C-alpha cells in the first residue's frame, strides 16, 4: 500500500499534471476567496494563488523547476493573451486618437517617476547599489525588466521577482491611489495602471471596465518601450 502511494507520488512529481492542476485549483480557490471577501484588493487572486502554491511546494518539498514543468502550459498563454490586448484597444480607437498627446506625456512622466522614485527611496533607506540597479526597471513586465537589468549591471533574476511584486502591489493599491489623487477619467486610470504595474495591473484593470482595460494594455506596451530608453540614461546619470 505504502509502496503504491510512493510510486504514485514519484509519478506525479515527474509529470506536468500536478503543476498544471495545482495552478488551476489555486487560482479558482483564490478567486472564490476574493469574491467571498467582497472583492477587497487585499485578497488579490494572483497574490493568494502564489502563496497557496509556494506553500504547497515548500510543504511537499517539490522544486520550483518541477512545478514549472507543468505550469508552463499556463505561462505560455501569456504571449497570445498579450497579442489579444489589441482587441479592446481597437474598440477604443476613437478615444485613443483623441488623446494621443495626453497618453504620451502621461506615460513619459510615469516612466521617469517609476524609475527615479524607486532608486531614490531605496538609496535613502540604505539599499546596496546592486539592489538599486536591479530596482530601476521593475515597473515593466519581467522579461523586458530582466533584459534592462542585465544591461545596467543589476541582477536579472532579482529584477524579475521585483517586477512581479510591483505588479501585485499595483493591482492591490491602484484603486485607492487613483481615487485619492482624484483621477476619474477611465482612460487615465487605465494608462496609470499599465504604466505602473504592467500585465498584472492590466489584469486588474480589465476587471474594472472596458476603457480602463484597453488603456492599461496600451500603457503596459508603451511603458516597456519608454523604460528601455529611459532607465539606462537615468542610471548613467546617477552612477556615471
Amino acid at each position, binding site marked *: 500500500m505504502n509502496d503504491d502511494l510512493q510510486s504514485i507520488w514519484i509519478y506525479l512529481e515527474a509529470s506536468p499534471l500536478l503543476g498544471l492542476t495545482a*495552478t488551476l485549483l*489555486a*487560482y479558482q480557490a483564490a478567486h472564490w476567496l476574493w469574491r467571498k471577501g467582497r472583492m477587497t484588493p487585499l485578497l488579490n487572486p494572483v497574490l493568494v*494563488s*502564489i502563496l497557496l502554491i*509556494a506553500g504547497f511546494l*515548500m510543504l511537499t518539498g517539490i522544486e520550483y523547476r518541477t*512545478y*514549472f514543468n507543468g*505550469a508552463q502550459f499556463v*505561462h505560455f498563454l*501569456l*504571449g*497570445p*493573451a*498579450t*497579442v*489579444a490586448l*489589441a*482587441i*479592446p484597444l*481597437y474598440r477604443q*480607437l476613437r478615444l485613443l486618437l*483623441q*488623446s494621443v*498627446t495626453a497618453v504620451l506625456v502621461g506615460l513619459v*512622466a*510615469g516612466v521617469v*517617476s*517609476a524609475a527615479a*522614485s*524607486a*532608486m531614490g*527611496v*531605496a538609496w535613502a*533607506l*540604505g*539599499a546596496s547599489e546592486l*539592489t538599486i540597479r536591479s*530596482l530601476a526597471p521593475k515597473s515593466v513586465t519581467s522579461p*523586458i525588466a530582466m533584459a534592462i537589468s542585465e544591461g545596467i549591471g543589476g*541582477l536579472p*533574476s*532579482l529584477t*524579475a521577482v521585483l517586477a*512581479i*511584486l*510591483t505588479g*501585485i502591489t*499595483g493591482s492591490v493599491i491602484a484603486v485607492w*491611489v*487613483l481615487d485619492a489623487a482624484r*483621477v476619474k*477619467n477611465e482612460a487615465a*486610470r487605465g*494608462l*496609470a495602471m499599465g504604466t505602473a504595474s504592467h*500585465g498584472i495591473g492590466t*489584469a486588474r484593470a480589465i476587471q474594472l471596465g472596458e476603457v480602463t482595460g484597453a488603456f492599461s494594455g496600451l500603457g503596459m506596451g508603451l511603458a*516597456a518601450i519608454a523604460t528601455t530608453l529611459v532607465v539606462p540614461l537615468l542610471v548613467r546619470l546617477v552612477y556615471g
Partner: protein
Amino acid sequence: MALLSYITVLLLCQLAGEVVARLAHLPVPGPVVGMVLLFVGLIVKGGVPEGLEKVGTTLLSHLSLLFIPAGVGIMVHLKLIATEWLPISVALVVSTALTLAVTGVVMQWLARQRRKQP
C-alpha cells in the same frame, strides 16, 4: 473550427512579432510587437470578427491566472529579498503609488485641457 482558426491568428501574430523583434533588434518583446501587428490588422479590416472577439475575451478574462507560474518563482529568491526587505518593500510601494498618481493626473489634466479648447 472558427475558434481554432482565430487561436491560430493570435499565435501567428505572436510568431511574426517574435521574428520582427529579433530581426530589427527591437528592445520590445515579441508578443508586444504581435499586439501592434494585430491592432494594425484590425484597423485595416475595419472590425473585430466575432470568433476572434470570443477567443480574446476568454483569454483576457483570465489574464491574472497566466502570471501565477512566473510569480511562484518568488520562492526561489526569498533569501535575496529578505536581506534588504525594508528598502525594497518601501521603494516598491512608494514608487508604484507615485507612478499611478503621476501618470493618471498628468493624462487626465491634459485630456481636460484639450476638451476646453473650442
